[in-house]
C-alpha cells in the first residue's frame, strides 16, 4: 500500500509540480484567483435563483427531490465525459508509463497511480458544479447537519462509478485497439468511438424523454411523490440512490441508500482493478509503436517535393498536431467539441420544432442583437481552442531546431499563428454549416458573422501564441504536460473575453447604434485594432523571448 501511495505521489508530482514555474506564472495564478472571486459570486447568485425557483415550484407536490435527481443525472453525464478524456490521456496517451514498467509494480498499482490525475479532474469538476448546488438545496430545504455530511460524502463517492465504468469500457476498447497496425491512429479512433458511444447514450436518454409524452405523464406523475424523480433517474440508478440518501438524510432509510452507493462504488473499484490487472498492460504496452512500412526504391522521388519555407513549417505543425494522439484529442477534437455539442442539442431541439423558429426569430431581430450574441459565442469557442496557446510548447525538445536552423524567428512564429488559425477554421466551418442548415441564418447576418469570425480567429491565434511564447513549457516528457496545470488558457480567455465582452456590452447599450452593418463595421474596426496591437506585442515578444526560450 505504501508503495502504491509513493507511486501515486510521484506520478502526480510529475504532472502538477509548480517547481520550475517562473514567478510570472505564479503571479498569474494569484491574479486569476482574484479575478475569479467576483465571477463565482455572479454564478452562485444565478444558481441560487434557479434552485430557489425550481424548489418552490416542485415542493408543494413533494417532487422537490427531482431537482437533486436532475443534478445527479447531469453530473453523471458530465463526469462520464470528463472521465473519458482524462482516462484516455492519462492511461493511454501519456507515454510516461514506459518509464514505470521496468520497476516491479503490479498493473493495479500503476493503474491506481494513473487514476490519480483523472480523479483530480473529476473532483474539480464536481466541486465546481455539485458543491454549490447541493449547498443551495440544503439551505432552501432547511436541511439539518446530517444532510451536509451526506452531501460531502456523496461528493467524494459519486464520481467513482462514472469513472470506473468509463475506465473499464476504455480498457476494453483499447485492448483491441492495440492489435491494430497503425497504433497512433487506432488509439485516437478508439477514443472517438467512445465519445460517439456516450453521445449515443445521451441521445437514448433524450429520446426516452419524448417531450409530449413527458408533458402528459408529468401531470399524473407530479401528483405522486417521487414521481418525477423516478422518470428522471430511471436510466441511472446511482443518481436515484444519491438523491434518496440526501432526501432521507434524517431517517435510517437515507443511510441505507448511502451505504448501498458506497458498496456499489467499492464493488466497481474492485471490478476496475481486476479488469485493469487483466486488460491494462495488454492494452497499453506496445501501443506507442507507429506503423512500419517498407520503402522501396523509386518511391523516394514521389515523396520529394519542394515548398516555400513558410509552407514547410506550416505543414510540419499540422502533421505533428494530427499525428500526436494527445495533440489531436486536445486540439482538434476539443475544438470540435463545442460545435458538435451545439449541433446535437440544436438538432434535438429543432426536431421538437423550437429551433426552426429560431431562424425567423433572428430575422425579426435583424438589428445588432443576434450579431453581438453570435460574435461573443464564437469568440468564446475560438478562445478556448488550445491550438494557439500550445504553439511553442508543442515543440518540446524539438524547439532548439528553431534556434539553429536558418529561419527567421518571425517566420517560425507566424507559421504557428497560421496553424492555430487553420485549426480554428474547422470549428468555424462546422458552426457555419449549423448556422446555414439548421438555424437558417439570414444571409446578411451570416456574411457579417463569418467575416468577423475570421478576424476574431486571427486575434485569438495571436493572443494565444504570444502568451505561450512569453512563458512556454518545453521541458515536458509527455504531451499532456503542455495542457495540464497551465492556466494560460484562462488567461487567454480573460484577455479575449475581457476586452470584447466589454466592447459587446457597450455596443449593446448604445441605443443610437442599431443597424447590423454599422455594428459589424464597428466590430471589424475594433478587431483590426486589436489585431494590430497583438501584432506589435507579438513582434516585441519575438525580439525579447525567442532566443531565450529553451
Amino acid at each position, binding site marked *: 500500500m505504501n508503495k502504491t501511495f509513493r507511486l501515486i505521489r510521484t506520478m502526480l508530482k510529475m504532472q502538477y509540480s509548480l517547481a520550475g514555474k517562473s514567478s510570472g506564472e505564479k503571479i498569474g495564478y494569484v491574479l486569476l484567483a482574484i479575478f475569479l472571486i467576483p465571477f463565482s459570486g455572479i454564478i452562485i447568485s444565478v444558481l441560487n435563483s434557479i434552485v430557489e425557483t425550481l424548489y418552490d415550484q416542485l415542493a408543494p407536490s413533494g417532487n422537490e427531490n427531482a431537482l437533486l435527481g436532475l443534478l445527479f443525472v447531469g453530473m453523471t453525464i458530465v463526469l462520464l465525459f470528463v472521465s473519458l478524456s482524462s482516462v484516455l490521456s492519462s492511461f493511454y496517451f501519456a507515454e510516461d508509463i514506459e518509464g514505470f514498467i521496468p520497476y516491479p509494480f503490479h498493473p493495479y498499482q500503476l493503474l491506481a497511480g494513473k487514476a490519480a490525475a483523472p480523479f483530480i479532474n473529476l473532483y474539480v469538476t464536481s466541486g465546481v458544479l455539485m458543491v454549490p448546488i447541493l449547498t443551495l438545496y440544503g439551505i432552501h430545504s432547511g436541511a439539518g447537519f446530517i444532510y451536509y455530511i451526506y452531501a460531502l460524502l456523496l461528493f467524494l463517492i459519486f464520481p467513482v462509478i462514472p469513472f470506473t465504468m468509463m475506465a473499464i469500457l476504455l480498457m476494453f476498447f483499447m485492448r483491441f485497439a492495440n492489435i491494430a497496425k497503425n497504433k497512433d491512429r487506432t488509439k485516437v479512433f478508439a477514443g472517438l468511438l467512445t465519445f460517439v458511444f456516450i453521445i449515443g447514450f445521451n441521445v437514448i436518454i433524450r429520446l426516452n424523454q419524448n417531450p409530449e409524452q413527458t408533458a402528459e405523464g408529468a401531470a399524473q406523475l407530479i401528483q405522486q411523490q417521487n414521481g418525477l424523480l423516478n422518470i428522471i433517474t430511471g436510466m441511472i440508478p446511482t443518481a436515484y440512490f444519491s438523491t434518496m440518501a440526501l432526501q432521507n438524510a434524517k431517517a435510517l432509510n437515507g443511510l441505507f441508500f448511502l451505504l448501498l452507493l458506497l458498496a456499489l462504488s467499492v464493488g466497481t473499484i474492485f471490478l476496475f482493478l481486476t479488469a485493469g490487472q487483466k486488460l491494462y498492460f495488454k492494452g497499453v504496452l506496445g501501443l*506507442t*509503436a*507507429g*506503423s*512500419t*512500412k*517498407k*520503402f*522501396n*526504391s523509386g*518511391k*523516394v*522521388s514521389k*515523396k*520529394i*517535393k*519542394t*515548398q*516555400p*519555407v513558410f*509552407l*514547410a513549417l506550416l505543414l*510540419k505543425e499540422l*502533421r*505533428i498536431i494530427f*499525428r*500526436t494522439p494527445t495533440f489531436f484529442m486536445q486540439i482538434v477534437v476539443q475544438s470540435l467539441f463545442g460545435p458538435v455539442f451545439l449541433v446535437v442539442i440544436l438538432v434535438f431541439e429543432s426536431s421538437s420544432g423550437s429551433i426552426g423558429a429560431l431562424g425567423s426569430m433572428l430575422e425579426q431581430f435583424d438589428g445588432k442583437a443576434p450579431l453581438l450574441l453570435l460574435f461573443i459565442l464564437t469568440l468564446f469557442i475560438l478562445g478556448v481552442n488550445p491550438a494557439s496557446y500550445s504553439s511553442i510548447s508543442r515543440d518540446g*525538445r*524539438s524547439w*532548439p*531546431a528553431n*534556434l*539553429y*536552423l*536558418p*529561419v*527567421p524567428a518571425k517566420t517560425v512564429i507566424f507559421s504557428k499563428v497560421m496553424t492555430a488559425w487553420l485549426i480554428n477554421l474547422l470549428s468555424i466551418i462546422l458552426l457555419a454549416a449549423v448556422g446555414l442548415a439548421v438555424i437558417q441564418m439570414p444571409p446578411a447576418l451570416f456574411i457579417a458573422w463569418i467575416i468577423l469570425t475570421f478576424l476574431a480567429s486571427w486575434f485569438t491565434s495571436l493572443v494565444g501564441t504570444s502568451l505561450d511564447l512569453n512563458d512556454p513549457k518545453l521541458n515536458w516528457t509527455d504531451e499532456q504536460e503542455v495542457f495540464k496545470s497551465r492556466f494560460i488558457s484562462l488567461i487567454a480567455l480573460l484577455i479575449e473575453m475581457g476586452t470584447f465582452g466589454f466592447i459587446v456590452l457597450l455596443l449593446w447599450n448604445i441605443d443610437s447604434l442599431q443597424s447590423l452593418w454599422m455594428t459589424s463595421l464597428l466590430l471589424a474596426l475594433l478587431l483590426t485594432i486589436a489585431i494590430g496591437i497583438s501584432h506589435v506585442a507579438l513582434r516585441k515578444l519575438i525580439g525579447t523571448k525567442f*532566443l*531565450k526560450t*529553451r
Partner: protein
Amino acid sequence: MITIKNVTKEYAGKTAVKNLDLVVPDGKIFGFLGPNGAGKSTTIKMITGILPIDEGTITVNGYDIASQSIEAKKLFGYVPDSPDIFLRLKGIEYLNFIGDIFDIPKDIRKEKIENLTKSFGIYEALDNHIQTYSHGMRQKIVVSGVLLHDPDVWILDEPLSGLDPKSSYTLKEMMREHAAKGNTVFFSTHVLEVVEQLCDEVAIINKGKLQFRGNMKEMKEQFEADETLEKVFLELTSNE
C-alpha cells in the same frame, strides 16, 4: 572557421563555460574533449545559437552568431547530442523539411537523399515515423539532414556515440573528406580512440575552462612520450 572569443556562460549562478578562447581552423578535424559536465555541449549550443552568450563573441566564417544569426546558420550543419527531434515526422518528411529550409533543388535533393540514406542503411525506413527509429537510426537521419544541405562548417555533438561500426566508419570517412576539402569539422567526444584515429587538432575542456589546445603531437609531447592518450587525458582533466 569558428572563432570563440572570451566566452562565458552561466546557468543560474553556476558557471558552465569560463572565458573560453578557441579558434577552430579550416581544413582540419577538430576534436573537443572533456569529462561529463565539462561544458562541451554548452559551448556547442552557444556556437549554434541555441544558447545566448553571456559574455564574449562567436563567429562562424566571419558571421557573428548573435548579430548575423541567419547568415551564420546557413553556413553550418549541427548534429545535436540527442537526436530525438521531430519524432512525429517521417524520415522522408524530415529530410524534405530540411531541404525546403535550405532551399535545395529537387533533383539534387533526390539524389542526395538516396545516396546518403542508402549508405547509412536507413533508406527503407524513410517512410516511417522517426519515433519508430532506434537511437542510431535517429542519429543517422539527423546526420543525413546535415549532409543534405552540405554546409561548410560541421558541428557535431558526440556524433559517433550511437552508431554501429560500419556507420561510424562511414561518418568518419565523410568527416575526413570534408576537412580535406578545406572545410571545418568540429565535434565533441569522450572516445579517445576516435580522437587518436581522427583528429588533427584537439581542445580539452574541464569545468568550463580550456585545459589544452594543440595537435596530437603537441599533446603527447607535453607529457612523457610513452604515456597513453588515456593517461594524458586523465592527467589533464584531473582536479588539480
